[in-house]
Structures are given as structure tokens and as C-alpha cells.
């Protein structure tokens, strides 16, 4: 009987081993979950890259020249672009003859705008800014 007791494990030992096993499984599950969420985040960035480059091209012809604010939906992303004037000037006119005026008096009004673009999809929110120049013929 004494020998049999040596081969057996008490409840406490089994419980401790089960607890260690539980912690090991819980840790690995948490690591996998984190890895999976990082992959989703990475996929979001990949989609964001495609969407952003497309949105910038899509609004390029209208933003700042026709509309100061543009909103819409593209590739599942909702976007909002606002335009603010940073600087404006006429283009440089070179004098071709003595006595002719020279300087920023050309026939085009050049405007430098700052575009703030915010993009959102499923609580994934990003903003970016870029500069855009427009020209308007004066005469």
C-alpha cells in the first residue's frame, strides 16, 4: 500500500499542472489573437494605400478649383477633403526689352493650397495632408 501511494499523484499536483497548462494555452491564444489583429491592421493599411492614392487622383481635378470641401465613399472608405489657401501669386514675367516690366506680373494666378484628407473605415481612421497648386488664367 505504501508503494502504491508513491506512484499516485495528489489532487494538488494535478491542479498545479493543469493550471500551468492553462496558462500556457492562454498565453499562446493571446499571442495568436494579437498576431491576427495585427494582420487585420496591416490589411487595413494595404487597403488604405490603394484607396488613398485613388481618392487623391479622383478629387484632383475638382478639389480647390471647384470645391473647397469634398466628401464621398470609395472602396468602402468614407473620405472628407478640405482645402485651405496657403499662398498665392502671379507667375513670373520676364522682360524681353529694356523698359519692359519684369517680375510676378504674368498672366496666371498661381495658388498653393493645403488639402487635409481624412479617411475612415470600420473605426480605422487616418488623416493626411498634401499641397496642391492651381493656376487661373487672368487675361
Amino acid at each position, binding site marked *: 500500500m505504501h508503494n502504491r501511494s508513491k506512484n499516485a499523484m495528489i489532487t494538488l499536483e494535478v491542479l498545479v499542472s493543469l493550471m500551468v497548462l492553462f496558462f500556457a494555452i492562454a498565453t499562446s491564444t493571446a499571442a495568436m489573437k494579437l498576431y491576427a489583429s495585427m494582420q487585420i491592421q496591416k490589411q487595413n493599411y494595404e487597403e488604405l494605400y490603394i484607396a488613398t492614392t485613388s481618392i487623391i*487622383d479622383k478629387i484632383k481635378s475638382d478639389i480647390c478649383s471647384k470645391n473647397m470641401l469634398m466628401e464621398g465613399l470609395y*472602396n468602402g472608405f468614407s473620405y472628407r477633403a478640405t482645402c485651405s489657401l496657403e499662398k498665392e501669386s502671379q507667375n513670373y514675367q520676364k522682360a524681353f526689352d529694356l523698359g519692359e516690366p519684369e517680375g510676378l506680373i504674368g498672366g496666371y494666378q498661381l495658388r498653393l493650397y493645403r488639402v487635409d484628407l481624412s479617411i475612415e473605415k470600420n473605426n480605422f481612421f487616418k488623416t493626411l495632408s498634401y499641397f496642391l497648386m492651381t493656376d487661373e488664367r487672368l487675361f
Partner: protein
Amino acid sequence: MRVFRNAFSMVETLVALFILSLLITTAVYSFRFILLDISKQEFLGIDRLLSYTQLRASIESMRYFVVDDYDAFLNPMNNLHYFFMGEETKMSYITQSPIFCDSIAVVKLECKEQKLLYNEEPLYGRIDFTQPKTLEDSAQKIVFENLQECRFLYHKDGQTLKSLQRDLPTSIELKLATHNQAFDFYINIATDHNLSKAYIEDYAYEF
């Protein structure tokens, strides 16, 4: 004696461990499948982005290129026009940023058998550059595959067109969809005003 009643026998413990090991093995295998799936997705994501970037560079660097329809019998008069052929499922153009070679090339993009195929042939090589075309053994790349939808739209002078010939569009929209995802690529053509129609036609007529 009471102490022995509270303990597990070796057989009980072994059976419990066997069941546990079965559970762990199943869990590890499922984790392994998840890992494989994730790594596959990662590869596809990077590959898709690379393909998109290459395709984008190729399309936005589209170049005005004048070709001549001159033929001694069919078209005896010179008939200059830009090289561009755009249809709903295929498009041919000249680009300054090709994928395979480092010089100007003629490119054909085609939606075929649920794939988007990219064909490229250097313009100044083994083809007649006055009538550019890709050959059967031209360099080819499968840009995207397993597509449920693949079509081109062309934007020109505020209009959206399903086909455009002999003139470059201002922007191109590529609509792609797989079984679980849809993508729209909107690409503006970065044209150089120095290579305008008048400039090129004057230059072509001059020589």
C-alpha cells in the same frame, strides 16, 4: 488511508494526460492552419500592393505617341493619331515606366479568364515602332487573378467612356472584384504639356 482516497492513480492520470494531449494536438494543428492562412494572406497582400504600384506607375506614365496609318493601298494619305486603344476589357498604350524593361514600351492590359494580364514589349526592339503591338512571346505578368469582375472605364473631358481610341484619357478607372472584395483603382494620367498634340504633330510633320 484517507490520503490515498484523495489521490489519482497512475492509470487515471495517464488517461487524463492522453485526453489532454489529444486536445492540445488538435489546438496546435488548428493554430498551424491559422498561421499558414495568415502567412498566405500576408504574401497575397504584399504581392497585390506591389502589382498595384507597378500597374499604377505604368498607367500614369502613359505617353503621347503618334503613329501613322499610312498604307500605300489602303491609306495612301498620312493619317497621324495617338497610339491608344481602350476597350472595356483591354487596353493598349505606350508607357515610360514599364515593369520589365527600362525604356519606352508598348503595353497591353487584358482581362482574360478571370485574370488581369499585363503584356509588355520594348518599343524600339523587334517590332515596327510606327505600328506598335505586343507579341505572343512578349514579357507577361499576371497582375491579379481569381477576378469575378474586371473592366476599364475611361474619363475624358468630363465624360465617362467604355471605349476610347486614338486619344489619351485624362484618367482611367479599373474596376476589379474577387469573390469577397471589390477594388476600384482610379489613376490620373500624368501628361507632360510639352508633349501636347500640337507639339507632337508639328514635330511629326516637320520630319
